């Protein structure tokens, strides 16, 4: 049965400079709601897989750090399973949340996630994606949240089916730079090094 849509998606509006009040109250000097807030650590004790740290800065078109951004991350567990009823293989690792939220530091603009190296996620036609996470960026001056991907460097990126859809010279812009357990991933909203953003 082919259903026809009867309504249009609600239009997006900017998250504005005070997004913290709603999504990360502790960061702007407010008291978190009763049961705490969603944070930037994606796991509990006992998580399976290799623990890694993601660190980066969002830059505007003038090369200035964006100090009012909020970044969300969504990724699979160490076996490539998403913690979601929409993943037929769920449940995966119970100690892994898959989702995190970080804000740019008000002085430096730096954001940071503590997570694990995700496994490879299959595609509908039986291929495998390279280890990656989806990042979503909102801030004042961004009318609609921006989707990008962070790939961990490694041989698997060579045949990732989504990376193949990006111009070859732009592919490095979605691959993090490794420094031990730390992976650096800057996001450039505009300019010479503009990041790759997706319509997914």
């Amino acid at each position, binding site marked *: 049965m082919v259903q026809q849509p009867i309504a249009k*998606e609600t239009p997006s509006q900017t*998250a504005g400079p005070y997004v913290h*009040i709603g999504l990360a109250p502790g960061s702007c000097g407010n008291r978190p709601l009763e049961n705490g807030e969603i944070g930037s650590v994606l796991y509990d004790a006992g998580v399976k897989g290799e623990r890694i740290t993601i660190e980066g800065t969002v830059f505007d078109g003038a090369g200035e750090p964006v100090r009012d951004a909020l970044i969300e991350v969504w990724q699979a567990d160490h076996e490539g399973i998403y913690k979601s009823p929409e993943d037929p293989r769920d449940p995966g690792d119970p100690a892994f949340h898959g989702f995190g939220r970080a804000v740019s530091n008000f002085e430096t603009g730096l954001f940071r996630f503590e997570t694990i190296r995700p496994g490879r996620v299959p595609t509908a036609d039986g291929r495998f994606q390279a280890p990656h996470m989806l990042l979503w960026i909102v801030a004042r001056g961004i*009318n609609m949240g921006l989707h990008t991907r962070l790939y961990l460097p490694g041989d698997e990126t060579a045949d990732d089916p989504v990376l193949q859809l990006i111009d070859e010279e732009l592919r490095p812009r979605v691959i993090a730079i490794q420094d031990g357990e730390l992976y650096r991933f800057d996001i450039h909203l505009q300019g010479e090094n503009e990041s790759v953003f997706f*319509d997914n």
Partner: protein
Amino acid sequence: MVEEANAFLARDHSTQPAAFTPDYKTTRLRAPSRPLVVIPNTLTETTGPVFGRDLIGDLDHDLIHNAAASGEAAIGPRITVHGRVTDEFGKGVPGVLVEIWQANAAGRYRHMNDDYLAPVDPNFAGGGRTITDENGAYAFLTVKPGAYPWPNDGNSWRPEHIHFSVFGTGFAQRLITQMYFEGDPLIAMCPIVKAIGDDAAIARLIAPLDMEHATPMDRLAYRFDIVLRGRKSTLFENRLEGN
């Protein structure tokens, strides 16, 4: 490559704001200049986080009281803001996290970076959250936010608004928007609103007064329905049909 069977309908950008809308000055340096790269939905996009009801405290949906001292309440016109989260097929989206934030009744945000001269209300923080019920319905109790000036173009004023953040069942549905109030003359002047080039789309962000759901001698009500992208088919259907 092949997309997932429960992929989302393509986003209709004609009813969404462009990234670069120079009358809203901050977009000038923050809008990407290259077109978005279209990718098929993989599991990364068709899945999304689920938040348990244990995240939600008893007063999280009640901004009149959730930051107030015991026995006190936020100052301002008391309102209920309620509605349904549905997909593009009109089907309710149950169990999804809805978060809101807003200025107080004087137009001041409780935020270390807001130095507007209107006063902070010690009994109002301006943040709340809830999870939609089995029909996709949600409700918040709050005070009507005030309009406030902002440094865009000398004499720019934001219409009264409440920010909404909504999750769906897949991350590609993720949405942040703003709800405006019926009858506010500042809506038509606002460059953030006008970033949406389609009047019918703007109208869907304006909540009508809803006397039917007003609480006599207590609160007026406004209704704000939210539509998320729909799926081409659901996982449940796929399982039934075995494909």
